[in-house]
């Protein structure tokens, strides 16, 4: 069963790889169409729920700058009142073959997701326990949550599909590192981990991390898109041409983080309760705890910065990127380099 899990892991990575190529193909072949569509302003002739709410993004009360873009929507046209002149990519509107490839890429992502799920399930069956008892399994689950979050997102808002390339890229990199560097054979838990808190604390931590992974991709793409809109044409910014509009991306970044932050808070709290049962005190500034705290503080800083009108949105988005960096330091540097109470990586 353990061997099957390992084989499924390879299938998972390959499927994500194919999906990534599909997303890339959509971006490159659909580039002209995408740019053209990006340039079209949504007119009042095509008002839909999706469009209206996107348009509102620029006119939210939080954002006085955006509100002035649309000084007077025609009084007779409620739909038009909301279309604030922000370029919006309309899903399914033309694109032809490229869009078809994009949809296929999503379908292959689903295949990869199923293989991913099977990898985790067979791993759990092989080890006779919840399959997140060491670092290899943890990263596996974090990526799974990331993939799940991505699919939920793309199902609800098809216009974010251009992000797929970078989401799958991030997941493939993490899974690749996981399989090559962190692999641990399936085995039983050490006594300290043998608690129902493992199911609560580690589940919450991996769910939060997986969603924050998507938040990170959205944040980076927001910055690239804003840079592109600002006239930058050097390499990473050229990718911005194919991205959804900056306002929508920035909102997406915020909403993903706002969703994940309470889960991360909950994960830390559960960790504290477990620490009180296992290590005598709820907080002992173990390196892992310290970096969870740092990540929490940075993400709290992001949410505050975003809610403060005097802080530029790019600055706030950069803070979100820094947040993910602290999460990665917490995952890799702390598990592999620093020894502490949380030394459960099992990597030899």
């Amino acid at each position, binding site marked *: 069963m353990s061997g099957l899990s390992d084989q499924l892991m390879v299938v998972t990575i390959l499927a994500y790889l194919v999906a990534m190529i599909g997303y890339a193909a959509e971006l490159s072949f659909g580039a002209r169409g995408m740019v053209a569509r990006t340039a079209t302003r949504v007119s009042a002739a095509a008002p839909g729920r999706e469009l209206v709410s996107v348009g509102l993004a620029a006119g939210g*009360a939080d954002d006085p700058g955006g509100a002035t873009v649309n000084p007077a929507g025609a009084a007779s046209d409620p739909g038009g009142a909301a279309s604030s002149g922000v370029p919006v990519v309309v899903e399914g509107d033309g694109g032809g073959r490229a869009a078809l490839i994009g949809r296929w890429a999503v379908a292959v992502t689903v295949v990869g997701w199923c293989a991913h799920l099977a990898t985790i399930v067979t791993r759990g069956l092989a080890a006779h326990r919840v399959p997140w008892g060491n670092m290899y399994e943890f990263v596996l689950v974090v990526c799974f949550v990331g993939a799940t979050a991505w699919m939920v997102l793309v199902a609800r808002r098809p216009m974010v599909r251009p992000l797929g390339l970078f989401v799958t890229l991030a997941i493939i990199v993490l899974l690749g590192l996981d399989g090559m560097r962190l692999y641990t054979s399936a085995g039983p838990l050490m*006594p300290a981990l043998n608690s129902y808190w493992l199911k609560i604390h580690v589940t919450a931590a991996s769910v939060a991390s997986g969603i924050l992974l998507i938040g990170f991709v959205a944040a980076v793409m927001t910055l690239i898109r804003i840079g592109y809109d600002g006239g930058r044409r050097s390499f990473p910014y050229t990718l911005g041409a194919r991205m959804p509009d900056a306002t929508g991306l920035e*909102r997406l970044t915020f909403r993903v983080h706002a969703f994940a932050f309470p889960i991360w808070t909950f994960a830390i709290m559960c960790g504290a309760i477990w620490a009180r049962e296992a290590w005598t005190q709820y907080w002992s*500034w173990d390196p892992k705890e310290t970096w969870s705290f*740092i990540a929490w503080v940075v993400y709290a*800083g992001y949410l505050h910065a975003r809610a403060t009108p005097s802080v530029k949105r790019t600055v706030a988005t950069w803070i979100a990127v820094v947040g993910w960096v602290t999460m990665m330091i917490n995952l890799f540097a*702390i598990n592999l380099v620093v020894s502490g109470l949380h030394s459960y990586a099992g990597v030899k």
Partner: protein
Amino acid sequence: MVDIEAPPADRVDDGTFVVPPGGGPGRWVLALARRGWRQLTSMRTALVLLFLLAVAAIPGSVLPQRRVNLEKVTGYLNTHGETGRWLDRCWLFDVFSSPWFSAIYLLLFVSLVGCLVPRLRTHARALVRQPPDAPSRLDRMPVHAVGAPGGDASDDLARLATLLRARRFRVAVRHDTVSAEKGYLKESGNLLFHFALLALLLGVAVSSWYGWHGSRNLVAGPDGAFCNTLPQYDDYGLGARVGAGDLPPFCLQLDRFDAAYHADGQPASFRASMSYTLAAGSGGPTAGRAQVSVNHPLRLAGAGVYLLGHGYAPVIRYTDRYGRAQISVTPFLPSDEQLTSQGVATFPDANVDPATGRRDPNDQVAFSGVYLPTMSSDDPAALSATAGASVYPAERNPRLLLVAYRGNLGMDTGYAQSVYTLDQSQLDSGKLRKVAASKGLAPGETWALPDGSTVQFLGTRPWVTLTVRHDPGERFVFGAAVCLLVGLLLSLSGKRRRIWFRADSGGGGDSGGVRGRPARIEVGGLPRTDYAGFTAEFDEIVQAARDEGILA
């Protein structure tokens, strides 16, 4: 405080330096203080402090910390010399109790209070006040709709108010407008979150003032029992407001220790069977038995008893050259996963001449040893005392390798000595000399030393590392954390929004006192926070008004 009318935290500070009117140098001080307070309570400062806090925590995870691992700090100081001392002077081995770390979080919390108090006041006012009147131009609102009135104006407005109330809006009907607002829980949650942070900090303070903890290694058996007093702990920590006499009286004894391992030596479970005696309570002392295992501490007299480690204590009987036997049971400390353990057995009262009764301090005896719970059957260590390694943590083929020393143990110097190692200075000075080394001794086996004395390895007894901790702040911290999470969820999921209806009598506004049929009804909506679904909600409400015939 300094300035009652502190501005809201997120207002941009324009840097003006306003000197209040009136004479005297005091006004300059006041102006300076006011400006400082405004700076401190601004969101920018709070963000900077938040980041300083994150950055300041980093050295605490990179460098060893005294509160986490004292031995590592000592080791670091020994190997890094001058650098280590400089780092120590900057409190870098006590980051989380250092003045600079405390300064950052205290400033942050002061800033927080300065920001929260005015917000609390504003929010309390908003909670008792009616929703504000409609702005003059509803068509300037982010969402806007217009319809013909369905019936009589005052009747329409009353029905609109009912419709909005049914949607849990707070509604105020004025002259020719209906104002509705919803989502107050967002700000309530936000305030709850931030006040919970303050409460959390107080809880942590209570923990550090009134908490105490102690640890010791406890060997199984009635002779190993200990009571909850400071001298009986190997190390301990008392809160600032706790005295030695505040520890509740109870005694603990390890009756039995069970460890189970998987085939590869990975531990499966540990369980300590303890018996305890509680002196407290009006009913006199009570005794009981309990199982303590990892993740399942024993709660005793408000304290938790935790099982944090375990090992073997070899039982060694030394019969000196006069034929007098003494027994040593000393915990050996594990040095690897397979419980290869090291320790010493000392016999300071060996070789007391029965004829004179005189104790010769230079004729004391000690053994340093390595205990292998399972020695590999083909291990050359079976034949020599050079370090071998255990291959399994349970006792499958136990062997004890001893090195005998004779001389002065250095115990009479008055300095505290480790019970796990011999005094290195005595070895270096030659006052304590190596006499002989044994081969691996099986339980029951006897080893004869050159001077005619004998050592017998009788077997082992298990020992456990126990930590006893009392933390009165943890419930407080837990409550604060729950409030924090609830506040956070309300704050992030809540959406404050306003909707206005105005019966427009057409051209004349509300000046003509037209109470008849208005020309049209205008609707405006304003999401006060980021809320993507607001348009949908707004449309739905307008549609509901149409369905009910209020709007045509």
